[in-house]
């Protein structure tokens, strides 16, 4: 398939530079003005574009949430599933279509709170999936309630006096569970983020890219973080790049310091590698 270069498309009035990957018949999207999901989504599409992999070899699976709407906007085989269950759905699809690149694009609440168990098990199996998590520290879609990623003390609609539970460190959890690739960026690290997503596609095994994002409408307002641009500039300003550090030391404190970088990039036999060791002769790939 011939892909149009970004440069060629840039000159065309009224066309999004990535319109060959967008369901533009679904625009306008539901995301609020100033929401960061669009940036993560664009990075993901740019990475798909730059991957030189046939678009038909990608599928995008989302769970439920504002971030979960991504599957509905991408012009690829795409599935918008149930809250928390994008990863097991993707696992089934991947087993049926082992040669395809399966991307799970979803929110922190979806992937780690309701769906956390599936996340750690897919990482443990080293299921060959690319997981992109928009971590906006809250349930954006339902109006900004506390999640397992909500910072200690943060205000949400269900922690009106501050969150008294400790959040997960998602990158650390991914690494501890066995992920082969783990990176974290903010939405202002666009180039690095896109690059990580690209690396994740090409990585054999379970790859996880966490994107520190703002939900200005729910989380931002409740915590008086200011206008959208201000929030991401703040995240960017307090971020420190520490490639290769142990993810347990990848501090995530949205007031003081956000450690970003690529933390894990290891070789580990995947689910398929180990399967084929036990059952070499008969496995039919991509059986229809």
């Amino acid at each position, binding site marked *: 398939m011939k892909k149009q270069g970004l440069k060629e498309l840039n000159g065309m009035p009224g066309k999004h530079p990535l319109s060959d990957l967008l369901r533009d018949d679904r625009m306008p999207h539901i995301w609020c003005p100033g929401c960061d999901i669009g940036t993560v989504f664009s990075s993901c599409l740019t990475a798909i574009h730059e991957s030189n992999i046939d678009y038909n070899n990608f599928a995008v699976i989302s769970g439920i949430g504002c971030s979960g709407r991504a599957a509905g906007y991408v012009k690829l085989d795409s599935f*918008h599933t149930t809250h928390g*269950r994008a990863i097991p759905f993707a696992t*089934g699809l991947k087993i049926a279509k082992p040669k395809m690149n399966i991307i799970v694009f979803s929110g922190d609440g979806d992937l780690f709170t309701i769906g956390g168990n599936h996340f750690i098990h897919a990482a443990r199996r080293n299921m060959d999936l690319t997981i992109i998590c928009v971590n906006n520290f809250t349930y954006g879609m339902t109006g900004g309630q506390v999640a397992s990623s909500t910072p200690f003390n943060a205000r949400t609609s269900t922690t009106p006096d501050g969150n008294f539970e400790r959040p997960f460190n998602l990158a650390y959890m991914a690494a501890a569970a066995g992920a082969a690739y783990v990176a974290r960026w903010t939405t202002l690290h666009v180039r690095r983020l896109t690059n990580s997503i690209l690396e994740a596609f090409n990585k054999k095994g379970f790859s996880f890219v966490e994107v520190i994002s703002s939900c200005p409408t729910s989380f931002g307002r409740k915590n008086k973080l200011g206008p959208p641009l201000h929030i991401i500039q703040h995240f960017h300003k307090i971020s420190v790049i520490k490639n290769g550090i142990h993810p347990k030391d990848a501090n995530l404190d949205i007031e003081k310091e956000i450690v970003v970088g690529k933390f894990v990039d290891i070789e580990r036999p995947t689910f398929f590698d180990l399967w084929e060791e036990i059952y070499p002769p008969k496995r039919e790939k991509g059986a*229809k």
Partner: protein
Amino acid sequence: MEGTEQFIMGDTACAEGAIACGCKFFAGYPITPATEVAERMAKRLPQVGGTYIQMEDEMASMAAILGASWGGLKSMTSTSGPGFSLMMENIGLGIIMEVPCVVVNVQRAGPSTGLPTLCAQGDMMQARWGSHGHYEIIALSASSPQELFDITIKAFNLSEKYRLPVLVLTDEVVGHMTEKVVIPPYDKIDVYSRRISTLPPEEYLPYVSDEDMVAPMVGIGEGYRIHSTGLTHDKRGYPVITAPVQKEMMDRLIYKIRNNVDDIVEYEEIEMADAEIVVIAYGISARPALKALEMARDSGIKCGMMKLITIWPFPEKRIRELAPQVRGFVVPEINYGQICLEVERCSAGKTEIVLVSHAGGAIFHPNEILEVISRL
């Protein structure tokens, strides 16, 4: 296996039925009394080029078989009560996305953990509408290992034909009993596989149906670039959050089943020619009921039996027909009256209906059913 006679457990026969009709993916989570289905699949799938994966729970199992089915593999999971409850949300996803797959529920007694190792028939209504929202489902019931083998194949065929999760409802006793099962040569088995659209990607829309109200599918990764969602959607598969599109979608989900009941519904009639009293039974309860029928006939009672194979959609046409012609229906079931409610509804007061109820943990003794037959 094919072309042989086996002496096997019901759960094993169920797995063999799946293998016989081309199931290539199983995702599950162990639970008594359905574990042996998973164990058999774990052994057999690699032999036929398929994959078994043990998931972290039943929500994941159900989600995984939907994903695998979209990927083109005939897919199945099996469970019992607690796991069946956990599968409900994603059974709904299968209904709205219209994904062919088979879910086996080897029933045990509930509520909750109940009697993990003992039988019941308490999930008949949960099978009907256990997931939220209104929908039509197909559920089949089996009363022997042989039937479990046959019905699993039928379940796959119906799921592929009508594009929805089809439920196989059996119970602990049938699942764990060992009997003779005839496994025909695989090429002698009628196998129906999903219709695949021949339209090019520019013309194909995922939810435009044929005359039977079922939309042909396409392969994933083949350039169709489809979208499917659990939200209410239009013919393109795009979410549209309005009442008219809800109606359009729902009408199709409901009527693709309702308009095809004659094709879907199956039951057996035994000694019905002159029957005045009809036992309506299904699953394990059909077996003591059959014995009760024989005993009743021996004592001169004109008793017949309607053995339900399709539970949902309910064979209401036949029951409406029979109701004014018979003196009464006797409905034995290992619950406090679920299918009996349907029999009452369809009979519309035209005959007497007696429920023979069992709390679970054991099956009926034929005398318990005979006694009711004799009283009528």
